[in-house]
């Protein structure tokens, strides 16, 4: 089935968000999640949670992701309260935009298109904590 609807980001995001140098999402992306399979609550941005008001508005609209399982395991072990599980998605351009952010090479921000069904996109990784 072909979906030719234009890819758009959710309403309410600041102008020029994601930034122009964010690339089409491509490749594996990992999230630390509270359950496997993950639920909607595992994919809420800081903006959706009303957290860090006053911080970078565009980054608040995205989700932090890691690009390797090792980096995701490290994140999980450094921050146990985030959840004991790791979820993986094979990101593609039709899912959103991706950019390394925060000055650390392992940290990326993923801005998902409005149409991206994140719960369906991500699956639990075997051998979680």
């Amino acid at each position, binding site marked *: 089935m072909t979906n030719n609807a234009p890819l758009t980001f959710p309403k309410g995001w600041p102008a020029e968000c994601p930034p122009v140098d964010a690339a089409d999402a491509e490749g594996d992306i990992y999230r*630390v999640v509270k359950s496997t399979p993950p639920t909607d609550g595992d994919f809420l941005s*800081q903006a959706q949670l009303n957290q860090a008001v006053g911080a970078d508005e565009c980054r608040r609209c995205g989700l*932090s992701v890691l690009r390797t399982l090792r980096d995701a*395991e490290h994140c999980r072990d*450094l*921050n146990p309260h*985030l959840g004991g599980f790791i979820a993986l998605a094979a990101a593609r351009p039709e899912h959103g935009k991706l950019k390394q952010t925060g000055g650390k090479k392992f940290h990326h921000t993923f801005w998902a298109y409005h149409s991206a069904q994140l719960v369906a996109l991500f699956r639990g990784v075997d*051998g979680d904590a």
Partner: protein
Amino acid sequence: MPELNWMPEHAADDDIGLESIVPEDVLYEYDGPRLFTVASDSGLYLCYLCDAGDTRFRFVVVPTSEKIVARLKDGLITAYESLDQPRVWLIDTGLSGEVERTVRTNLIEIDQRFLPKPTVMLHPDLEPVLTVKLQGQQMRAGAVPASVMKRAIDGAYGALKKLAEMVEGVQEAAGRPVRSIRTLYDLPAQRVAFASFEVAFGLPEAAQQELAIREDAAAKLQRMSIILADSLEWARTAGGQAQPADIGLDKLEVLDKLVPLRDGVTDLVQISGRFFPKRSIYTLDRTASLAVKAALLKARARDDVETLEGTPREFDKDKLSFILRNDGGADVAHCVLSEELADEAYEYYHNNVKAKVVVRRVKDRKPVEVLGISPAEA
């Protein structure tokens, strides 16, 4: 998200003069800052986001210094260690950082589910390749015997060297191994900790990687890690089995360098690091030691291992070899040594002392590999 419904039992309300928690130096972020410094009139603090609810955040807050932060950034201390300070507070804030409540507590009273795991470093790249930690009931900071430190360092070094030789297939080479494989086992010691005794090794330094094997060093290290993980899995269960599986002499000799000694203050050896998948931590106790020793005896009895007697002559310090001669002056064997045994063997040569030498004959090669040396009975 459920609200923050936990609090350490003896937490007491306090005030350290912070009105808001505003990150200054963000050390780790994931959906916002997770570990960062905060500067205030009363000094520098390290803040760790330990829990979040619908309407508030909870932070572990400790006094810190530029030196501690630098050590954290350099991988010399773990995240947990950076928070393990004499004064510890839990601070609840609203979602934009305004302080709502401050309580004084101790790190040990905080539920471990809300703290970094003990061995995790600030960043994934700072994780040691291999960490060997020796623990014993009689060990404490400031009173770790030198023999324990030597065992940890020699054991890790010896195990890594054996693994590198297995991967490179250079076990049959005479004496001193080619310089190129030193990169794989002569790893830089990243940190040493003394509460029990722990030594952690990092990746080969860039300078060492000018050598021929630089390009596939990562692949070789990965193969070494698979062999080591396999060996440690065996050791974890072998003690409880009447007839453990045969893993081969090489893997047993790796384990022999790591298990707790039969006598001594070390009760447990914990092995962890980037070497292993899923951040596994392997614990070896004396049950594992007994299983390894028993399996080694059996494996060596099968292999062409024998004991020779003679006096070491013509010691070659470059090739790490000597000629073993009997009392009549005839050659018994051309022996090659590991670096670990070289000093000991040299003493027999230098003092003209007759020795009992346990050797392994490698098929089709004249030099025999020395496994151990001790004084010959009078």
